């Protein structure tokens, strides 16, 4: 069992937890992920590492309540335990040798982008961060990003905070103004990453994206996390769990990834509704 050491709500649906998992904390790097199961009957879900404290032996996860498992996890409190927590899985984000990077985070993807920005910043790289949210209510980690960035743009789709528009607005403006990053690292919803890549492509600047497909074991066994890369005119199958989760954004077949991500949408919606009803009933009966 893995004890929840701390819990904090970052906004109404996004929660940060620190989980005691010394072996994972000892090795975790930005860009890697863990797989957890809440209880003995639970499903395995991957979550990207949002931070770690090697001395305390804790790993930070930040998740949005989007389905049955995250709803169940979100009801747990500091002091409670979760059944399984395994990692760190996948390859760390490549940060070596970079001097001028733009880190783009969208929504809860900012949780994963933050440790990347922090690592780059600590290594002396110039970091420009662009973080985007649907609205002010959903904003997370602004102060943390400000501390880890030389320049920060905060965007909201509805203009309720920061600048209005999505993350590609300042990205395009900077590139048009002649800014030449060594690398753009985009982490967020698939559609956001697809458009970030499209914005960067005319300038030929390398653009890394972090893929988060459906997976089960996370160790290179099931093949559920496969995605297609287009390399030199050839379609190549890769596995996010062992080859990624970071990939060259120019090569990723986003439309296929978006389609595959929706494979169990009906099942997931029903499971989520059922879990919410169950949890609400439990809460009501316990006062």
């Amino acid at each position: 069992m893995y004890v929840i050491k701390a819990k904090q709500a970052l906004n109404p649906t996004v929660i940060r937890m620190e989980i005691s998992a010394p072996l994972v904390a000892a090795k975790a790097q930005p860009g890697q992920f863990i797989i957890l199961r809440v209880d003995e009957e639970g499903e395995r879900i991957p979550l990207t590492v949002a931070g770690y404290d090697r001395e305390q032996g804790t790993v930070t996860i930040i998740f949005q309540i989007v389905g049955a498992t995250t709803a169940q996890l979100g009801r747990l409190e500091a002091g409670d335990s979760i059944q399984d927590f395994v990692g760190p899985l996948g390859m760390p984000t490549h940060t070596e040798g970079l001097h001028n990077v733009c880190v783009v985070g969208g929504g809860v993807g900012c949780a994963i982008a933050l440790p990347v920005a922090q690592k780059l910043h600590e290594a002396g790289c110039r970091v420009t961060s662009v973080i985007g949210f649907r609205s002010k209510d959903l904003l997370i980690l602004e102060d943390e990003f400000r501390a880890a960035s030389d320049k920060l743009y905060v965007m909201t789709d509805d203009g309720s905070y920061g600048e209005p528009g999505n993350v590609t607005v300042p990205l395009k403006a900077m590139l048009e103004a002649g800014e030449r990053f060594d690398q753009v690292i985009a982490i967020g919803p698939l559609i956001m990453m697809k458009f970030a890549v499209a914005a960067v492509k005319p300038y030929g600047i390398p653009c890394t994206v972090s893929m988060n497909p459906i997976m089960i074991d996370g160790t290179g066994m099931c093949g559920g996390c496969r995605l297609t890369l287009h390399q030199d005119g050839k379609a190549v199958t890769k596995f996010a769990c062992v080859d990624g989760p970071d990939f060259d954004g120019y090569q990723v077949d986003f439309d296929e990834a978006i389609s595959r991500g929706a494979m169990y949408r009906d099942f997931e919606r029903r499971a989520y509704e059922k879990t919410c009803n169950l949890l609400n009933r439990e809460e009501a009966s316990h006062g």
Partner: protein
Amino acid sequence: MADMNPKKHPMPTQDPAVRAHNFEEVAMGYPEETALAEAARCLNCKNMPCVAGCPVNVHIPAFIEKLRAGDFEGAYQIISESSSLPAVCGRVCPQETQCEAKCVRGIKGEPVGIGRLERFVADWHNAHAAAAPEKPRPNGHRVAVVGSGPSGLTCAGDLARLGYAVTVFEALHTAGGVLVYGIPEFRLPKAIVRQEVENLRALGVEIDTNIVIGKTLTVDELFEQGFEAVFIGSGAGLPNFMGIPGESLKGVYSANEFLTRSNLMKAYREDPATPIMKGGRVAVVGGGNVAMDAARTALRLGAEQVSIVYRRSLEELPARKEEVEHAMEEGIEFKLLNNPVEVLGYQNPDDPRDPKNGFVTGMRCIRMELGEPDERGRRRPVPIPGSEFTLPVDTVVMAIGTSPNPLIKSTTAGLEVNRWGGIVVEESTGATSRKGVYAGGDAVTGAATVISAMGAGKAAAKAIDAALQEA
């Protein structure tokens, strides 16, 4: 005097029409009187050809003799001298190509049902033996085993019996490897695997789940922690796909994923936490035991129609004969001498947001004929030009093998692997190119059988013991 009946006593099985809709075990096991009667068919030959046919050399005539005398626990003790997982082997070994293939009774009739007798003895022991086995006296040496599948459990069991302190590291949340994620409940109940794992724990074997060697810890760190030898039994890795168009459509699974969802994650139950596509028409591509398991699982999940699509003929099907027969009895269709060329999916031309877009609707196949034999003597399947047709299906399961797991080789300096990514070992000992590191099972050979993995685990245990006693 032996019973000279030329036929094996039939295995009682669930009625095919009933079992096609449940996940309970198909073969129900011999009752005691049948086991005694089948044991009486053994000639107790002096030269024991059956023992040579067993990858772990179980003393077969000796255990059958005990069984015949009614000493079931004595029979179990004889089997467990050689095998750490008798209840598993009695169920999933391909006896017809191993021990039973060598049985003298097979010359003029059917061989003795050795596997069925082994299962009877193991089940009897698990139901009746109350006392935990005595823990062997510790010999002061520590060995790490990577992976809790058949090779790892065998290696761990053999070393523990010799007094080694053995820790098994398992990446998943449950011990058993392919025995729990791959082989379905109806062929190998998970309670049997749990019992075998408990038997090893009782011997003092420690099992640490949720630890991925190559990620959470490396092989080098295991040595730093004081382990004196490491056995790698990390199993099969990435599933193979055919490389045909449409394999990323929704509804195409690798057999590993399909079976893991159903077995390990219990998606076959009512109201599971883990989803799986159920019902409709299912095509399973491949002809091995894994393909049979996937097809029969799909049927039990509620498929209307399940087909095995295999490019060669019935004769070349690599699956165990019994599994093929069971699958046929249950109504699985065998579309032999067919090869897929493309998986087809739905795309609404007027609505790119149609939720049905991207789901499988069919599979284009081409008919095959058998041509000249290849280098292994198997006749090579050759496509018949112009014979393409579309098989309407909703789910496709690719059961065409796996390549060894990539995680350990990428993090272990000096560990030699072959062209296919399998760890290179000295066959008789499992010794790798790294001193103190041994390997066996699918991590070395690619997809093979439970018993050959056990044989490799056993050989490595012997070699590890020899090396550490010498040191």
